[in-house]
């Protein structure tokens, strides 16, 4: 299932990032990032730790503030305007490395909270949507349990369902499988692959190179806060251009 053709039909970009720069104190974490993500495009961002890949996707829903450059998500530019930030956040779903489910709420409440309070969806309807997505991630029977009663893989699938309940147009994944036991990685990746097949715009920070080969249109390789290389997965894995990506690939695939 190699879908490497980039959808070219839609002209407008889902995300446009222009000359993005960010510093933590004096440390320059993101340097002149330029990136355009088309609708329906699936991007995997890879790179060594500390390369700024998580920071980059956290800038896209303003969990991190950038200092210069432009980020335009679905036609809305991220500035200090809180209205714009809330608008972007309700359009962009995010899945975290450590799930970040709300432990004091049941699985169902986790999934209905934001639709009810942000989107003003009636409770009944929100619960139906939540059950729909919980079925999709194959854990509808856990709906009335609390997150603490679920395994890591189940929690991460709930986190995906929770993000989907807001009916986002873009999904961001920040190392979604890094905190999981090896046995649970597959169940989460399968859920993400199913999502990809439906045409969701996805940006995924991950070290799962098999996943990248299976679903990504484009692989972006970052190092020291810069985009070092971007290419189709086939090209990137078989014929890496830069010395740095060759080294990285040899380290993560070489054993």
């Amino acid at each position, binding site marked *: 299932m190699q879908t490497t053709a980039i959808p070219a039909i839609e002209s407008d970009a889902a995300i446009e990032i222009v000359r993005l720069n960010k510093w933590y104190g004096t440390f320059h974490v993101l340097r002149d990032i330029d990136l355009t993500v088309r609708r329906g495009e699936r991007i995997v961002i890879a790179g060594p730790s500390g390369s700024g890949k998580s920071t980059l996707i956290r800038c896209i829903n303003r*969990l991190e503030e950038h200092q210069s450059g432009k980020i335009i998500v679905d036609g809305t530019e991220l500035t200090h305007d809180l209205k714009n930030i*809330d608008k972007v956040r*309700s359009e962009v779903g995010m899945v975290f490395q450590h799930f*970040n489910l709300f*432990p004091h709420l049941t699985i169902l409440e986790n999934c209905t909270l*934001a639709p009810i309070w942000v989107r003003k969806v009636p409770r009944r309807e929100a619960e139906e949507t939540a059950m729909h997505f919980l079925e999709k991630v194959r854990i509808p029977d856990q709906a009335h349990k609390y997150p603490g009663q679920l395994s890591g893989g189940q929690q991460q699938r709930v986190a995906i369902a929770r993000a989907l309940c807001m009916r986002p147009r873009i999904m961001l994944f920040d190392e979604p499988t890094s905190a999981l036991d090896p046995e649970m990685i597959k169940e989460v990746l399968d859920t993400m692959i199913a999502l990809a097949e439906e045409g969701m715009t996805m940006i995924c920070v991950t070290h799962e190179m098999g996943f990248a080969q299976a679903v990504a249109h484009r692989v972006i390789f970052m190092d020291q806060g810069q985009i070092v290389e971007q290419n189709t997965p086939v090209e990137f894995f078989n014929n890496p251009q830069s010395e740095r990506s060759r080294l990285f690939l040899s380290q993560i695939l070489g054993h």
Partner: protein
Amino acid sequence: MSDTHSETVAFMRETMLPPQPPPLAQSGAIRWLRENLFSGPLNIALTLVGLGIVWLLVGAVGPWLTHSVWNAGSMAECRQIVAETWGQGATGACFALVKHRWNQFLFGFYPQALYWRPVLAFGLLFLALAPLLFSESARARRVVLGLALVLTLVVSAVLDAPGPALAGMAVAMLGWAALVEARPRPALLASLVYPFAAAWLLWGGSLWTEAMALAGFAMGFVVWRGLARFGLFAFALAVVAAAAWWLLLAGPLAAALAGVLPLRLQPVSSDQFGGFVLSITIGVAGIALSLPLGVILALARRSDLPVIKVLAVMFIEFIRGVPLITLLFVASLLLNYFLPPGTNFDVILRVIIMVTLFAAAYMAEVIRGGLAGLPKGQYEAADALGLDYWKAQRLIILPQALKISIPGIVSTFIGMFKDTTLVVFVGLYDPLKAMSDTIRASFEWKGAYWEPYIFVGAIFFVLCFGMSRYSMYLERRLKHDHR
């Protein structure tokens, strides 16, 4: 080493072991004693020293308690009875004092014929709290409602409440309890009205005074909700509207309504309050007000807006840096110099305000600890879902932060409730010092030292221990993480 697999490295289990029951717990009193009290030389020594201390204490206090006298008219009579029964030089407690003067410890100088009013206010407190504190456990809630209802009626009847008052009480309490059970949401509104009803019961006078005060809050709320889309501006306007109502309209309107429909109870002035009526009035008001104020201060201290943050830090650090007694003096003495002459600002109200501010500063720090204890991911998840600041705080952050802070919050409550005895320094009759001194000042009970303190201490213990047990119940009920 077993020899079955010794010749080969590869190992494959052919049958899985079935689970077995755990070994029986080894119990028995002697075993327990040996393990816990006599496990080694040091432990044995400590056990013996401990037993010695207990023996000395019981030897000193035991006879005094067992020789106690419950029927006597004065200290002298008590001493005579002890001497006659147990011989010259024997000591004995004189709890006859408690039997004679219990009402002053509980009610201060509240008119004796009106004792049922504070009792009713206290009973209604549990009806008001039941839907808040026992929202999830129907059984606990029904027990609390039933006990409050029955005890209030029985105690009021014993205290000679007039027949019509008893009948009215029974109807009102039954109605309210039914409302709590049948329609929990409207019952929360009734809980909001409770403070005003309690104030009317305690101080008496015209019902319209309290009703107009409540109407001011209601109007402020309506203005705020009506203009909610203007944010802080709506809030400011609501405050102005309520203030204008209280200052300009509430007084004349209350008088006019009282003319049309006089709903009056015999007024009781603040200087007639005393004993536990005073302590519980100040304590409950302080607890109810300091928690929301503490939450606001804690959020303000963590705010990104420098002005708000600095104001919160200044307030919290100032209050925490000053003894409560200083604040009470300010409330009772200095405030009068600054207020326009002739202003009659009730002394209990002033004390409640100071106690609330004092407790709120501590509360803010306790809650700030809870807020800091939450993982950053919770804030990020709330942000990423598009919840705005207030919704994130209300739905995600505060429920978890308050849960973590329950032990600290309840400690602050308990501390504050006991601190209400400090009002003795501004001339109010707290149960511990002022009331005991007053009773000892009488000719009959001169020389009674331990008995009043033991009685008052026991009541404080019951109330504080109750709060502590409730906090443990709440922690158990809110435990969802199963880790």
